């Protein structure tokens, strides 16, 4: 691989812009990967290996890799990192870069639509189950509350998410 300083700067700037502020602290010790459930499960680009790629200036080259979406955001990495990298925030910064380039699985669009329409990322009609256990059929959440739904729609529409043309 040819290491190109311009590409390194671009990758680091992108990651920092999306919230991975401390990526430059990484010394590749691998403590994060040692405790990462995603690494254990066999996803190739998480924690140390993802940060290595980014510090090498690889950004577009790995945009299609779905590992970052398997991150559980459990933050074992952030807890254990001796350099304050907060690797989970770097993984999420890369995920945000992917998301804003629309490089994510179509299956995740359902959650975005659910959130926008009902205020719940996971939505199933709960009425029968709630009645069965003796609760009011409608929960006191945004699920059946139009004013609350309008609020969440306003927040999303006026955000960078609203500019992606998903809604």
């Amino acid at each position: 691989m040819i290491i190109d300083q311009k590409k390194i700067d671009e990758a680091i700037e992108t990651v920092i812009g999306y919230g991975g502020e401390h990526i430059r602290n990484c010394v590749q010790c691998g403590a994060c990967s040692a405790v990462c459930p995603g690494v254990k499960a066999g996803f190739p680009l998480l924690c140390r290996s993802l940060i290595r790629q980014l510090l090498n200036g690889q950004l577009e080259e790995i945009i299609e890799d779905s590992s970052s979406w398997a991150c559980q955001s459990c933050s074992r990495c952030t807890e254990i990192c001796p350099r304050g990298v907060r690797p989970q925030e770097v993984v999420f910064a890369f995920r945000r870069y992917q998301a804003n380039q629309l490089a994510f699985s179509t299956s995740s669009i359902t959650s975005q639509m659910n959130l926008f329409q009902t205020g719940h990322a996971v939505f199933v009609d709960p009425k029968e189950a709630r009645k069965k256990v003796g609760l009011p059929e409608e929960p006191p959440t945004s699920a059946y509350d139009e004013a609350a739904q309008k609020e969440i729609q306003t927040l999303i529409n006026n955000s960078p998410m609203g500019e992606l043309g998903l809604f």
Partner: protein
Amino acid sequence: MEKIGLYLGCNIPLKAPDVEQSFRKVFPVLGIEPVDLPGATCCPAWGTAPSFDRDTWCAISARNITIAEGLGVDIMTGCNSCFGIMSEAKHFLHDKATTERVNARLAEIGRKYQGTSDIYHVMHVLHDKVGCEKIRENLKYSLDGLTIAVQTGCHTLWPSDVYSTCEANPFYPVMLKELCEATGAAAPHYSRLESCCGMGGMRSTDAEKSLVIFRDKLMSMQEEIKPDIIVTACSSCYMQFDMSQPILKERGLIDFEPIPTLYYTQLLALAMGFDSSQVAAISQIDRSAIIKEIQSEKRLMKEVA
């Protein structure tokens, strides 16, 4: 009675309302009055706004927090993801510039984040506010002789620097273990106690990889402590244990029957004598035998007033 805002999230009120009902039954008896947070939305889940834009995440979390602030209460949630998401948002909102940007967004819907409500998990409220002693005093049935495999879940443990309450050693959590032991049951340590169940983004990205680490955890429970019940403090872990054990069984990847799984407040509600058709009514794994065992006459301690 101390009031606390009951933040429900998505899975509990929509898919597992028996868990919600267990909150509503046990807390008033233990001196805590859960107050509804009308119009609360998703926290927002990791796979939504947090995956696109941090300020949008903080704005949606902050909107939920403002509902509690308006009622002058703290927040309690039974979902680890909601606890993690809202705690991290609150952590980012300690930065003044972030709060200013987020409040500019909230102004569009007539709200303002103040930062006056703290975020707690159901487990924290039970362990730290109620306490094991008060739990013991309110039991109707003793769970003596039963063995529980404890599943705390990830998002109450790490990153410990953003949480208002946390374990002394998040890699060796004891709160849920102590809460389970308060019912009289044994909750022994097992080597993968703090490991991930594989639910969440991992399962939706690659269900097969998720099942591999799930099985690793399950086998550790079974081979090391052979539990009668798995008890979780996380609604996502709860769903993973209930839905994925039958898959492993069907594929011949485990040679024992799926272990019945309860959310902690369901276990407690049963031990306090509440009706299982309300507090532990929805599951794929048949829980009738363990429920009958928990509420059997030989376990009766005393009548709770």
